[in-house]
Every structure is written in C-alpha cells, then in structure tokens.
C-alpha cells in the first residue's frame, strides 16, 4: 500500500506491433493536479486511457505492467471496470456528446450511479455541473436541445460537465480546454483548482502555460517514454532532461 492515489509501474502499451507506451512509472498523488505534456502523438492520451481502462475498448490495444488505484491493481481480473470508471472519470480529447438533449447528457451519469434521489436533486446536479463547466449561461435556455447542436467549445464544456456530474475521485481530462476561449479556459482551470481540494485531477495539455498554472506535478512524455516527472515548478524552471529542456524552451502556443 502506497501513499499515492494512483501508481503505475512499468506500464507498456502496444497497439498491435506499435509500442506506444514504454516502461512508464508514475505516481499520482491525491488532491493534486498532475499535468501530462509532450508532443502530439507521444502517448499522453494512451497513457491516460490506461488509468481507467478505457483502452479495454480498443481491440488491438494491449496493456502490460501494474496500475494501482488506492493500492489495488486496476487490471486485476476481479476488479470491476465499471466501478473503476465511476471513481476515475474521463473527459475525452474529441468532444463526444451523446445524441441526446443537453440535460440528458449531464443527467446520464448521476442517473446510472443513483446520485439523485429525485428529479429536483437531479436538476440541481445538472445545473451545478453546467455552471462549474461554464456552460450554464449558454445552455440554460436550451437544456432540451440536442447536445450535438452545440458549438465545438460548448460541446467540450458539456463533456466536462457530464464528467463532473458523476463526482469521480479522480478526473482524467484530455485537453479539456483545447477548443475553449481564454475566459472559458480560465473558468475550467478554476474548476480544476476547486476539484483539487477533494480529488486528484490528471490533465493532458499542450499549453505549457496552462500546465504551469494549474498543476502541481508535471509529466513530460516523449515518443512513448516518460522522460521526466516532477514538481511542475521544477520541470518548468529547471528540467533535468535535455529533451524536456528543449521542449519547454520552444515555448510557443
């Protein structure tokens, strides 16, 4: 039993022959925000998806190594991935609202987990989640319009709202602000900060600034390797690995 919320040991991921994640060891603390950064295609999403076994749904994907959540191996056959995913929520890189109304999109999680005793509580949860995801003002008049009719950024926020509505212990967010304007981004970052009070958050981002702003720990991935994992401050000010250094210093975007 470790002190970490999640710890990954010697994780390898293969897509068929493609070795996408090589020997990654990461410990994610509770009540912290951990950022994954790295060039596109380096395996951030892949690794993130390992943490709640979303990779199970990809036929050709094979995961090796141990990933412990609260000291329990999540790849243990006796672990129920459903319970795991209820604890470890996820916001995907491509916004994927259900072809249902906005309300139903958000209410879906609470409903299946039985988080609301009645319609009023459910309405409350939906409103709170939408508010936190900074979508309430835009959505409140069209709660029953289809979620797929939203703009790109709105869809992304809808997916965030949907994820936090189920109150997970760990929230995995794959580039949650990629389609958001600065103000919305700030609101989501605020949300992340708020979530950190009780849970842990893992966020994939391409914005170094964002990583610096919201995270306490940062992991830098490169070509499937975890190059460096340390305090965010350390990574951004005094990286150990030259690759990190050079990635950081191309400080653009």
């Amino acid at each position: 039993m470790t002190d970490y919320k999640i710890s990954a040991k010697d994780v390898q991921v293969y897509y068929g022959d493609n070795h996408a994640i090589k020997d990654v060891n990461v410990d994610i603390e509770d009540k912290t925000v951990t950022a994954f950064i790295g060039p596109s295609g380096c395996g951030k999403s892949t690794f993130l998806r390992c943490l709640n076994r979303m990779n199970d749904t990809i036929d050709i994907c094979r995961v090796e190594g141990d990933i412990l959540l609260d000291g329990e191996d999540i790849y243990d056959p006796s672990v129920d991935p459903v319970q795991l995913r209820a604890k470890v929520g996820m916001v995907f890189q491509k916004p994927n609202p259900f072809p249902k109304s906005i309300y139903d999109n958000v209410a879906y999680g609470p409903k299946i987990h039985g988080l609301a005793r009645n319609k009023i509580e459910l309405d409350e949860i939906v409103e709170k989640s939408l508010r936190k995801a900074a979508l309430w003002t835009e959505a409140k008049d069209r709660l029953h319009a289809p979620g797929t009719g939203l703009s790109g950024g709105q869809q992304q926020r809808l997916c965030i709202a949907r994820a936090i509505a189920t109150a997970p212990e760990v929230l995995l967010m794959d580039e949650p602000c990629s389609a958001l304007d600065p103000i919305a981004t700030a609101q989501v970052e605020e949300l992340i900060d708020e979530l950190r009070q009780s849970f842990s958050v893992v966020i994939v981002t391409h914005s170094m600034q964002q990583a610096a702003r919201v995270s306490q720990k940062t992991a830098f991935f490169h070509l499937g390797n975890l190059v460096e994992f340390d305090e965010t401050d350390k990574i951004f000010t005094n990286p150990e690995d030259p690759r990190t250094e050079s990635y950081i210093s191309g400080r653009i975007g």
Partner: protein
Amino acid sequence: MTDTPKFTSMKVQDPRTKKRNAAEKRFRAYGIAAIAIGGLFLAALTFTILKSGLPAFTQYVMKLEVTLSQEQFDDAESQLLKTAVYRDIFIDNFSDQLEANGIDVNYDADALERLLGKVGGDIRAHYRENLSDIGQPTVFQLQLSSRVEGYFRGRVTRDTLVDSRFLEKTDLDIVDVLRDAGLMTGRFNWAFLTGTDSGVDNPGGAGIGASVIGSFFMMLVVLFLSLPIGVAASIYLEEFAPKNRFTDLVEVNISNLAAVPSIVFGILGLSVFIQFMHLPQSAPLVGGLVLTLMTLPTIIISTRASLKSVPPSIRDAALGIGASKMQSVFHHVLPLSMPGILTGTIIGLAQALGETAPLLLIGMVGFVAREYPDGVVSGFMDPNSAMPAQIYTWAARADVGFYEKAWGGIIVLLVFLLLMNAIAIFLRKKFERRW
C-alpha cells in the same frame, strides 16, 4: 491513502454496483438466450429437415442384365404406351436373371411390377440413345418403387404394411432374397440432384435439378435488378430527395410495399408482365421480375437505414475538400453502409428464394420443371419451376416418397441459400468497421 473516508475497494462491490452488475449480467444473458433460442429453433428445424430429407439422397436399385431383341424393340415402339411394354419385357426377363444367379424364389409378374418403380421411361431412353445395345446383354440398375425403398429405410415394415395394389407383404420376401443376393442395393441418388420433376406415380424419378436451374436464373434476375435499383432508390431518397410531399409519398409507399402479400405481386406480375408485356408464362425471367418487385422494399428499407447511420462528419469531410455530393456518397457513405445493404440483400434474396405464392400465378407451380433449358436465353425464357415451387408441389403429393423428396429439396434449397449468402457474408465482413 487509506484515510480517505470514501475508500472502497473496487474488488468489493457496493450494493448498488452489485445490482447494476446483476442487471448487466441479466442483460447479457438475455442476449445469449435470444441467440440461443434462435439457434435452438434453427437446430430443431435443421434436425427435422435433415431427418426427413436425407433419405432423398439415397436410392435403391435392382441390378438386372437384359438382352433386348430387335423384334421386341420394334414391337414396343409400335405401341401407344411404349414405356409399359419395355417394363413388361424386363419383368419377363427376370426369371433368367434369377436362374443365372442361382436364386430360387416364388414370384409372379405383378409382384415384380410392384417392386419396381416407373422404369419404362429410363429403359426406352437408354435404347433410343444406344441403338447398338439392342441385341447385346446390357446391365441396368433399375429404380425400386417408393414403398420398397421405404422398406429398406425402415419406413415400411411387415407390421405396418397393409396389402394394397402398391405392395403386398409377400413381396417383401422377394425383396429380402434379392437383397441378400446383392441384386438390390442402395446408392447415392445423383438423379435427385440432376433430375427433373416426375409424375405423381413416380417418386423415384423425381429430381430437383431443373428447378435449381430455374431458381438460379430467377435469382440472377433478382440480384441484378433489385440490388442496383434498390440501392439507387435508397440513395436518392436518403441523400438527394428534397424533403417534400413526393418524397414522403415514396417513402410511405415503399414501407407499404413491404407489407403487400406476396401473392398480390403475383397478380401484378400476371397482369403486367404476362398479359400486358406478353412475356412468356412459367418463365424464370418473369418470376425474377416479380420477385424483384417483392424484394425491392426490403433492400431499400435496409439500405436507407444504414445510409442514415453514417455520421454526418464523414459527409462533411468529403464535401469540405470539394467532393460533390454524388462523390461523397459513392466514395464514402456507400462503402460504409455496405454491411447494411448486404444484410438487406441477404434477407431479401433469402425471402425471394423461398417464396412460392407469387409463382403460383405466373405459372411456375405444378408439373413444370420437366426439361432442362438448353442455353442461357432459354434459361430465362423457357418454362421452368423454382425450388420452393417444386417443394410445394411435392409436399402435396400423396406418395410418401415425395414427402422425402420435398424435405430433400429443402436441404438443397438451404445449401443453395448458404452458397448464395456466403459471398454476401464474406463481403459484409470485409466492409464492417467501427470508427
């Protein structure tokens, strides 16, 4: 961090999860059960079909060596019912045969007649084709009557047999002797696969071959008309049609056509193709046209459903780089909806292959498939039957021998269906993907 108050092990399921997982298991079990029920029925049906139909694939014959003289031949040819004369000649010859084999059994000519099937036609055909065999000893393998075959198969026993002009109990003694002497044997019934229909008093001579050909030509017509027309119509309706009354009309129309009883298509075919367009009766071409109209709705409905399920982002992607609507449909949407189209085709063709009622009105049911077509054009135009029609006809005949044939025909039909589907299923497998 065990101090988290919320900690619950994921290996220990909380009651709610337990309930949900139970629901999950149940749900899954329903699925398995549903398939199992389907499979069970299929198994039961297959078992019934095989059990009743396999006998059709064997036949029992009597070996007989005969020398037919020229006079006998000329005499027979001068009669009205020549085949009966040939048969009698053979029966007369039988005693020599027994002597040659050193067999001693009491029989009379009538008994032999009861044992043999309707063999006159075969004999006559043989000599007319091989005139040089006249005067030469020739070995024949003559089909036994359906009741004697039933005895070999155990369907008829001495206990159940009621003496009749078709077979008497004492005849079975002769059968036993001849069987022991090796003169009566069973063999694979090629004639069933290659033969044509026969009269109701000749179950042994009935074969399904000609109607397989009939079905084949019909299916060609159906496939080459209904698939392109069906897909084209679906594409128009789903992708191009303006959303207006006319489109609605067509849409409702198509669903409605699917509910039209198949015999009504027969009425339509009779009046349009035969009476108005003067196409020949009993022709696979007409059958194919009627079945095409009947399958179209199935193909259109399934094609539309699967066109609909292609996500709009794919269309957008193609349009966004300057593909025309037509190109986006034919290059992207259509290949992606191929599985559904093929499913519709499989189901539609399967239905068309097994349908009898519409054929009734355009003259393909009855005693039709007696001759093989002698070319591709005549394959489409000459009178022929189709497998289900043939099966239907056989099933109604009095002689139990035909009942076996009917089930045997069903086996052939299903094999035909499987072969036909195999290609479509293979293609469908190739087109299936998830994105």
